[in-house]
């Protein structure tokens, strides 16, 4: 068929040619496969990368430069695949995951306003995914609480309660996440905070009804235990101390684990201390807890509570001994140790040992600089000088405090610590009546921390300082005008406009 030469060439090169042809075919098929053919795969790739960036953010102490990359990664997924989500349920889930994770990341980075807005979006996206919808709605309530917006938190929890804690959905909801069980208790607490005692009582009654219903119909032992402890909390909030004690006694019979026993003993002691005012009984129970369960989570808190009783009763030396025990025995429980250190400083103040108290406060802010007590301690030293009328010493102490906070704000620290340090700088400047510096500092922060939106309200705070402390009306007006220009169309701009109208009237 072929001329001899050609045939021989084909045979000789046959194997080589066939390998080469195979390669070419394979490469051609490879080129045909692309992400256009599978947008879900491309979305998964982007989600994986965003998650990796999120991990880097967590490892890097929530540094803003890492954070913005991760946030952008998530936002791009939602923006790029939002449309495709309506046609493909897989992509819908991916977009929803990205939106939820974005909101959670912002929450962890303390970007509460952004986080709430993103949970709102997630709530809208999760029409067909009840667990995500419930999580988003509940989180909106938690954030509102964190922001101190009790009314908004109450509205969110009410929405949650209507949608997820109705009789027909209750069982499914508590299986999604048992913490949803505390919603009626939260509602009662928030209503109480908003001066609506009747509403609060109604929510507590509703909580009791829900818990009793679950106790009668549920069989899951973990869920039953969670419900019983919530019922106990309900009794405590209703100030039904005897019912509380009866339930504690019943729970003690039912739950024999050391962890449960120590918790119940602590609650019993608290009922006697705060509810019934039986301090000797409370002291005896705290002591019994520490003796029986020295390793329990509640043990250092029980000693702190007992020390508090002694302190309030004027038995300062006994209180001091117990605080000493906490710092000597529970070195790994930082929160308890700092509280003990703080109370020791306060007792020294009460005893009139100002120098000793100052040294103690200094040790607190050196060793536990990133705790609340650590932030508070430097100003406490200044306040003590101020109370004694030593103005120069107070001023020097505030300068020292400023230096300390500036170091914290400038160092390689977590975002939360830096923000806290900046807030304390402003407080220190204000307490030192350095109002112009305080106003300038306030105005510098929104630019330095653009992702931390609460600092945007600094314009209003600075304007108030210009007006009230510096009697500089034009400075206040200029500050408010800058705010309106910088954040047009926001609630903040509206508030600034209102202030402007008042000032220019």
């Amino acid at each position: 068929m072929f001329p001899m030469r050609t045939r021989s060439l084909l045979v000789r090169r046959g194997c080589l040619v066939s390998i080469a042809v195979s390669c070419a075919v394979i490469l051609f098929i490879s080129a045909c496969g692309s992400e256009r053919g599978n947008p879900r795969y491309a979305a998964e790739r982007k989600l994986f990368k965003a998650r990796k960036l999120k991990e880097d953010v967590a490892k890097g102490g929530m540094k803003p430069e890492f954070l913005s990359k991760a946030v952008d990664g998530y936002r791009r997924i939602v923006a790029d695949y939002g449309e495709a989500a309506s046609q493909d349920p897989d992509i819908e889930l991916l977009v929803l995951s990205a939106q939820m994770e974005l909101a959670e990341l912002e929450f962890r980075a303390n970007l509460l306003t952004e986080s709430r807005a993103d949970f709102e979006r997630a709530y809208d996206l999760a029409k067909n995914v009840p667990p995500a919808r419930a999580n988003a709605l509940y989180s909106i309530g938690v954030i509102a609480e964190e922001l101190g917006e009790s009314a908004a938190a109450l509205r969110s929890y009410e929405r949650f309660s209507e949608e997820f804690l109705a009789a027909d959905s209750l069982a499914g909801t508590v299986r999604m996440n048992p913490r949803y069980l505390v919603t009626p208790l939260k509602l009662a607490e928030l209503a109480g905070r908003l001066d609506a005692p009747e509403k609060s009582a109604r929510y507590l009654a509703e909580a009791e009804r829900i818990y009793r219903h679950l106790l009668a119909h549920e069989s899951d032992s973990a869920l039953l235990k969670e419900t019983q402890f919530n019922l106990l909390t309900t009794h405590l909030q209703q100030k039904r101390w005897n019912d509380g004690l009866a339930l504690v006694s019943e729970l003690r019979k039912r739950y024999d684990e050391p962890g449960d026993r120590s918790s119940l003993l602590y609650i019993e002691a608290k009922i006697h201390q705060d509810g019934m005012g039986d301090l000797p009984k409370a002291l005896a129970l705290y002591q019994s807890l520490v003796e029986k369960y020295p390793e329990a989570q509640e043990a250092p808190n029980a000693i702190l509570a007992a020390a508090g009783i002694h302190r309030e009763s004027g038995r300062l030396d006994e209180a001091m001994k117990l605080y000493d025990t906490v710092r000597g025995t529970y070195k790994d429980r930082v929160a308890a140790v700092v509280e003990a250190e703080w109370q020791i400083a306060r007792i020294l103040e009460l005893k009139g040992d100002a120098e000793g108290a100052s040294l103690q406060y200094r040790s607190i802010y050196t060793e536990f600089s990133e705790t609340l007590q650590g932030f508070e301690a430097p100003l406490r030293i200044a306040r003590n000088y101020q109370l004694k009328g030593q103005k120069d010493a107070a001023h020097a102490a505030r300068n020292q405090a400023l230096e300390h906070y500036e170091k914290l704000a400038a160092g390689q620290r977590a975002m939360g610590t830096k923000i806290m340090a900046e807030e304390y700088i402003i407080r220190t400047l204000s307490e030192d009546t350095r109002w112009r510096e305080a106003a300038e500092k306030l105005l510098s922060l929104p630019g330095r921390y653009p992702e931390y939106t609460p600092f945007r309200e600094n314009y209003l705070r600075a304007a108030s300082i210009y007006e009230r402390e510096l009697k500089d009306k034009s400075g206040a007006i200029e500050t408010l005008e800058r705010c309106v220009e910088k954040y047009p169309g926001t609630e903040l701009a509206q508030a600034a406009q209102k202030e402007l109208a008042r000032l220019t009237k």
Partner: protein
Amino acid sequence: MKRIARALGIFKPAMESLRHGATVVPLLLYFILKLALILLYASSYTKPLSTYWALLVPNTNAEALTHYPGHLLLMPRILGRLDLILEIVLLVVVQAATVLLFAAVARRERVRVGTSMRAAGRRYLHLALAAAIASAVLFIMFEYAVPALAGSAGMPRGLEATAGTLIGLVIQAFFLFTLPFILFDGYAAFKAIGASFRFAGRHFPESFTIVLIPFILTMPTLLLSLNPGAIAFQLSPEFLIQAQIAGEFMEFIATYLLLGALTLYFLETRIREETR
């Protein structure tokens, strides 16, 4: 020691054979084919292509291969299974041709790729059968025998892996000379395997060294491929593609050295034994 040194010394002329570019051509083409397959796998995360890949590993859900990063995490396992088939179907011819090319260089004959491929092709059935037997023995040993023995002895995983590797190398050393016996002596597969076992038994330190050195070369990339999850999550899932390519490249170099060393050693030993 002298015998090990002699086996080590044989790698030098094997490397020098590179001057004859033709010796590398069959393995190079096979390497290119493997690269193309990696590329094909990396880009086939849609159905129906993913379905065909899933057939290679039983109990693998084809759906899992359309997801990221699962598709890339499964790559070493799936391409590893494909290797088993390719080794029997295609690699044997490539290896046989390379052995013949090394032999031509050693005998100072004209080095022709086409001639070697044709000669290898003529012995295809025996070569494929011998490769199938060797692969089956290694597969059974790694998948069943070693885990069962280690399990009954309560061996820790690290020790089990080390013992398994050593046993695998010993088995490979015994099969090592099957190719030259089929190609140079015209033996059938079973006879060639028997002859190889006897030959390797007589020259075990050398045979083991010839197998060990190329294996050491492939160790780093082999270790990388053992833990795809760690690579994907610590670096990036895409790095698995690069690791796979690096693995194939090291395999290509190691196979070239192994074939060169075994051919030259086999021919040299035969001449020594005949002239004795």
